[in-house]
């Protein structure tokens, strides 16, 4: 094994310090989530300043801890610090262990993520001042930070999965932050459905890897042929902790492709990219941190962390390159016709992520890391400034003394004139990807609805109901044992003699607790 420190809570003094430093980025945000969640649940109203302070303290400490770990790695010339935190749960033939790793891949990511989250937390205190969901935003931001630090510092794919899911949930809830409008809610749901469908890849891939390679724990890279650092080839810098690779090429390819599926969902690669521009409905600070900086880059991070798997599976690498390039091309074309700045930035972000994925597929790991970190910083700054776009533009034009020139003309000249209308149509339709996905899912949904309908008919027949009497949910009868309960809507329907008002003697399932149908004059405006 190379220069690795493997330690745990009961290790030496130095090992104990390293353990605490490595635990801090995960435990502190989790504690922050717990404190905020309990306070919100029990209705404790504290000041905005208190919420901001909690986030600042948590992520400030995380920045210091990860920086200290980075310094320790450099000073001691170790490749990694491997902390076996302990067993979470176990049965006689399976154990789930908490396992964290600090190495030259995880530390830059953990440090930059904590820094950006802390900065976004500070900025949001003004941006979201007196917003009704202020405390909810900070809770979800802290939950996101917990998930990200878990993914980045994970010492096994099992730990990655836990963080991965936390990131997905916080992302969906923040997209739907403005929950009083149906748009953000619909888009939050769409993002979550995409995540959930693609996360099957990570879950199944992790389980298959455990079966075929014997473990999902990251292992130290093989020893270099020369010393470290300064005396090694530049490619040795990419020898960070890796997942074990199955002996069978077929198994390795299947696991790699399943991981690619997870990456496609999380990083909005084609064909599952439609949720990203819609995700910009969330608050601008969360858009910046999720879709400009951190969340979309977790996919490339996973690819970097598991590149040994892809090195052993050329077919999977080809798939990665093709998906990356397709995403970059698609996003750069579609992004050029977007009429609002946040959508344009979303597609710009998608373009860069596609390029990063292609770089990783081509084996350019060391190029991908600065590309990710640089893109994260620049894009989050752009998204944060996006609400002031017109203001900034006016300032710039006043300073220049003329209007800003139209950019990107050189790219337009590259495309033959007869292709331009088609490309324009393609871009306006966002590559027809939504239609394509809908067409793909529609037959499955129709089949499922047919099965469901068949089940209802069977239930009606067995239950002795007249065929097709299962009530429409909008017209429900309420048959209660309590004769004192009277539902106006049901009474009216009964007076009209409709099926909805008739008792359930027709054996159609009478709705329990249909409740008030909330007539319009009963609806009170918020705060009444």
């Amino acid at each position: 094994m190379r220069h690795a420190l493997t330690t745990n809570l009961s290790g030496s003094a130095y090992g104990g310090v390293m353990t605490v430093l490595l635990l801090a980025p995960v435990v502190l945000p989790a504690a922050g989530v717990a404190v905020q969640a309990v306070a919100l649940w029990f209705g404790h109203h504290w000041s905005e300043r208190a919420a901001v302070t909690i986030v600042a303290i948590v992520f400030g400490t995380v920045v210091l801890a990860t920086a200290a770990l980075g310094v320790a790695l450099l000073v001691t010339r170790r490749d990694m610090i491997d902390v076996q935190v302990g067993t979470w749960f176990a049965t006689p033939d399976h154990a789930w262990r908490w396992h964290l790793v600090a190495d030259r891949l995880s530390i830059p990511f953990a440090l930059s993520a904590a820094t950006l989250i802390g900065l976004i937390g500070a900025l949001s205190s003004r941006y979201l001042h007196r917003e009704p969901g202020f405390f909810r935003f900070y809770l979800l931001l802290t939950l996101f930070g917990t998930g990200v630090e878990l993914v980045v510092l994970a010492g096994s794919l099992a730990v990655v999965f836990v963080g991965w899911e936390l990131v997905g949930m916080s992302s969906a809830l923040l997209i739907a932050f403005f929950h009083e409008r149906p748009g953000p809610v619909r888009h939050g749901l769409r993002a979550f459905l995409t995540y959930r469908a693609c996360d099957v890849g990570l879950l199944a891939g992790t389980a298959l890897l455990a079966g075929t390679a014997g473990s999902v724990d990251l292992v130290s890279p093989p020893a270099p042929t020369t010393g470290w650092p300064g005396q090694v080839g530049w490619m040795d810098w990419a020898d960070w902790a890796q997942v074990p690779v199955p002996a069978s090429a077929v198994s390795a390819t299947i696991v790699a492709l399943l991981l690619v599926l997870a990456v496609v969902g999380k990083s909005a690669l084609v064909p599952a990219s439609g949720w990203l521009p819609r995700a910009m409905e969330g608050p601008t600070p969360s858009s910046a941190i999720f879709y400009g900086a951190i969340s979309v880059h977790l996919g490339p991070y996973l690819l970097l962390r598991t590149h040994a798997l892809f090195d052993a599976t050329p077919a999977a690498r080809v798939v990665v390159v093709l998906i990356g390039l397709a995403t970059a091309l698609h996003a750069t074309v579609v992004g050029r016709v977007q009429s609002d700045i946040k959508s344009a930035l979303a597609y710009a972000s998608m373009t860069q992520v596609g390029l990063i994925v292609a770089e990783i597929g081509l084996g350019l790991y060391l190029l991908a890391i600065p590309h990710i970190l640089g893109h994260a910083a620049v894009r989050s700054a752009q998204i944060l400034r996006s609400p002031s776009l017109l203001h900034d533009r006016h300032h710039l034009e006043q300073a220049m003394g003329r209007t800003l020139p139209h950019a990107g003309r050189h790219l337009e000249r590259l495309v033959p004139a007869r292709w331009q209308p088609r490309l324009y149509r393609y871009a306006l339709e966002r590559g027809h990807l939504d239609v394509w996905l809908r067409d793909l899912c529609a037959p499955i949904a129709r089949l499922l609805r047919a099965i469901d309908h068949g089940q209802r008919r069977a239930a009606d027949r067995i239950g002795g109901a007249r065929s097709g009497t299962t009530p429409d949910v909008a017209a429900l009868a309420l048959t209660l044992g309590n004769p004192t309960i009277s539902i106006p809507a049901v009474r009216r329907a009964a007076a009209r003699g409709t099926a909805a008002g008739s008792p359930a003697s027709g054996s159609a399932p009478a709705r329990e607790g249909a409740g008030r149908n909330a007539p319009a004059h009963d609806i009170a405006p918020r705060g009444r």
Partner: protein
Amino acid sequence: MTVSLGPLLAACLLLLGAGDLARRRLDARRARAAATAWTGTALAMIVICVPLAGLVDDALAGVGGETVTTLTTGWARWTPVATGLAGLVAVALAPVRTHTPRTFIHVLVVLATGLAATATGEPAVIVALWALASAAMWHDLRHRLGSRGPARLFALHQAFGVTLAALGVMVLAIGDASGWAGTIGAAAIIAAATARLGLLPLHLWVSGLVESAPMGLVVVFLTGPTAPMLLLADGIPAPGTGLLVVAAVSALLGGLLGLVQPDARRGLSAVTVSVSGIVACGIAEASPTTVAGAILAWQAYAIGMAGALMVLSTTEARRGPITLTGAGGSFARTPKLAVAFLLLGLAVVGFPATLGFVGEDLLIEGTRESSSLLMVALAVATAANGATVVRWFFTGFTGRRDHAGEPDLTTREQWAVTAALAVLLVGGLTPGRLVPDGPNPAFGPRSAGSSAHTDATAAGHAQ
């Protein structure tokens, strides 16, 4: 026959409570308060037994009471706590709009049968308790809905299940478990468990029940551990491939059907079928990891689904049905109802940092060892169930600004939900002692004549 005193006394307490409610003829609100008090006391009795178990068992053994224990040991150790907590949630959140005093009596009776089933490993007793619970349910449904429709559907399925279970137990008792009698008996028990769990093709009663019966009653029946206790009971052979196939198809199809349901009740009933299938997969696999995962997933399901269904029922009683075509809800008006629904639902579907995740992980890890295809099916089912829960969270609790003046969780409701969430979240963070560590030694090993899985179980446990 070994008997666990804690769950048994708790069940007796609930029957006393049912008698008390029948005698006092209270109105619905007071009946709910009294039922909550009885259920809370029963739960407290079980919880108190946990730290006292070792001490009391030693004392009982000293006076020759080897067949009596304080709490169930082995697989079902925490099942009484989960069942009792599910019952508390069911009673505390029951809307009086839909729950009459008679309903609360039936809820206590059905809950008592569920707790009593965890007190013994004797299959005949479990089947008798199942029959009693079904009769109580049928009585309420018939009074409320008439004899046709969901009530008849329920009665047919349960009568079929109870009859088959009784037949299976009798055949196994009188015949040679390794011969044809064992095969017939095992097949009958598997078919009976399929009906009780609501697995395909005997699942039609579940959605009708969830749509039309009082939710408190539905919850205590659905979360009653009858089927898992029966499948793991003394002398019952390991289910084997038959149940595995049925369970896997139920898990997958239930999960996918949940995505296309037009209202929240049907959506959650599909999740119920799917999770029951996932749990049954674990029991059918019969390895130490899968059975531990199945029991843990069942316990998380019992608490989480009880909470999610009751929150749904409470919300619907306050502002009408939650449907795809509905206007949604005001999150700002009912944030605690919304958050409770989300967290409890996520615990059911095995979201990380909840108790359900531990069960799902063990199940997926355990099934992977026998079949990668089965593991992928369970992963897809889990993902679909999660999507269904979040879909109904967004559809039912967000999306509108105005409201009908509906209140958020009341103090009583909030404490019940807090207890459920605390168990699911704290248990999810520190699940060490909650993971079942093997079959109940008091109930004896699984009978001879079972499949090779049984040997694997024993071998795995011996390690």
